């Protein structure tokens, strides 16, 4: 690593606006302090941490000096990211729970059904909430686009749209192929099918993340009236409650299945199951932090 280039590379994690203001000074300080050699790892980690702090401040997630409206918006967007994580976890859960009823004794369906039904109901409620929030932002989005905002978000939206199209096409091809395979081949018997399944799962995850990033990029630039912001914050809190219900439903289903159909759960690969659980917890934590930030900011706005 050469002098000058290395410090600049380390600073890439800082927000662009911060780098424009302080970047040159900080690079000079690093050069003055460490000379021509590479930046030591301890300092590198410190800069990563400080860069993260600046990013959190820029997004409105940290710092009481942030405008309350920015804090409310950032909190709501963090809840949306929590929901995006839940969508990924939900897809894993749906795959895991495929044909679960056939594995449970007839008299014992009630409890797992309650859990599974809660997951489905919460998933539907969450989708409706996200749709309501999107509808509330449409007038502001129209104004933003009308004022020439499209180029600012074009790259992210196009990326997300292309990923969605590729995911749909790949999933459709996989579905067509799956119809020609038997049960054993579809469930690990064919390595090629398993590999394609993994690719579709990755593509679906990338699509969800890309859309969440596109929505975030647009929402951060919208001029949202205070009433809409308050409405969106309320929806964000509601969405967090829905996530909590979803976790409760999934835990109920897992517990019931472990009691009544342990062989079914035993047949499911443990790593993806664990990943689904971890993703749900991560999503819920993001939701709770976001909802808290949003409500605190709303209080400051009032």
């Amino acid at each position: 690593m050469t002098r000058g280039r290395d410090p600049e590379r380390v600073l890439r994690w800082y927000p662009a606006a911060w780098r424009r203001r302080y970047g040159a000074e900080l690079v000079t300080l690093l050069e003055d302090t460490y000379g021509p050699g590479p930046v030591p790892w301890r300092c590198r980690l410190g800069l990563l941490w400080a860069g993260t702090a600046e990013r959190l401040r820029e997004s409105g997630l940290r710092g009481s000096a942030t405008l309350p409206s920015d804090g409310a918006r950032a909190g709501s967007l963090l809840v949306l990211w929590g929901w995006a994580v839940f969508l990924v976890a939900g897809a894993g859960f749906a795959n895991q729970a495929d044909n679960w009823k056939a594995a449970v004794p007839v008299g014992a369906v009630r409890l797992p059904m309650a859990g599974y039904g809660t997951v489905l109901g919460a998933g539907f409620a969450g989708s409706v909430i996200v749709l309501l929030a999107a509808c509330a932002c449409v007038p502001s989005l129209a104004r933003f686009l009308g004022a020439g905002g499209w180029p600012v978000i074009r790259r992210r939206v196009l990326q997300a749209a292309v990923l969605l199209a590729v995911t749909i096409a790949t999933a459709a091809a996989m579905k067509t192929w799956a119809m020609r395979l038997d049960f054993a081949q579809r469930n690990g018997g064919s390595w090629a099918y398993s590999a394609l399944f993994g690719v579709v799962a990755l593509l679906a995850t990338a699509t969800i993340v890309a859309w969440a990033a596109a929505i975030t990029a647009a929402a951060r630039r919208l001029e949202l009236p205070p009433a809409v912001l308050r409405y969106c914050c309320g929806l964000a809190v509601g969405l967090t409650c829905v996530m909590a219900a979803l976790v409760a439903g999934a835990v109920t289903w897992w517990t019931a299945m472990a009691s009544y159909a342990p062989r079914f759960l035993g047949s499911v690969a443990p790593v993806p199951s664990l990943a689904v659980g971890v993703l749900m917890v991560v999503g819920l934590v993001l939701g709770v932090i976001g909802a808290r930030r949003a409500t605190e900011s709303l209080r400051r706005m009032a």
Partner: protein
Amino acid sequence: MSRGSRADGELGRANEPAVLILTSLASGPKHGYALAKDIEGFAGVTLGPGTLYGAITRLEEGGFIEPAGEERRRRPYRITAPGRAALAAAVTQMRAIADEGSARLARGRQPQGQALGWTS
């Protein structure tokens, strides 16, 4: 504002980066490297570049310091009037704590019964 310069103007403890930076700037404008070296000299504290510039950012946002020149790569900073007031308040608070600590230590040197107020 977080660590460094709080929204209410409080700067925090003596070893907080904001207090150290304002103390350093109280003797005249300095750029980043000079600040780090000066602080190391008078306080024995090494502020990492990330911590130093995080605190500089907060202090500038809070109006406690301002750029003292146009130079982009080694931009010096100087303390502002609100910065001096905040530092004075922090120093007064620290002095009160130091005085109280000294007084209690002095009392602690007395025989135990006397220190606890058991003497008649």
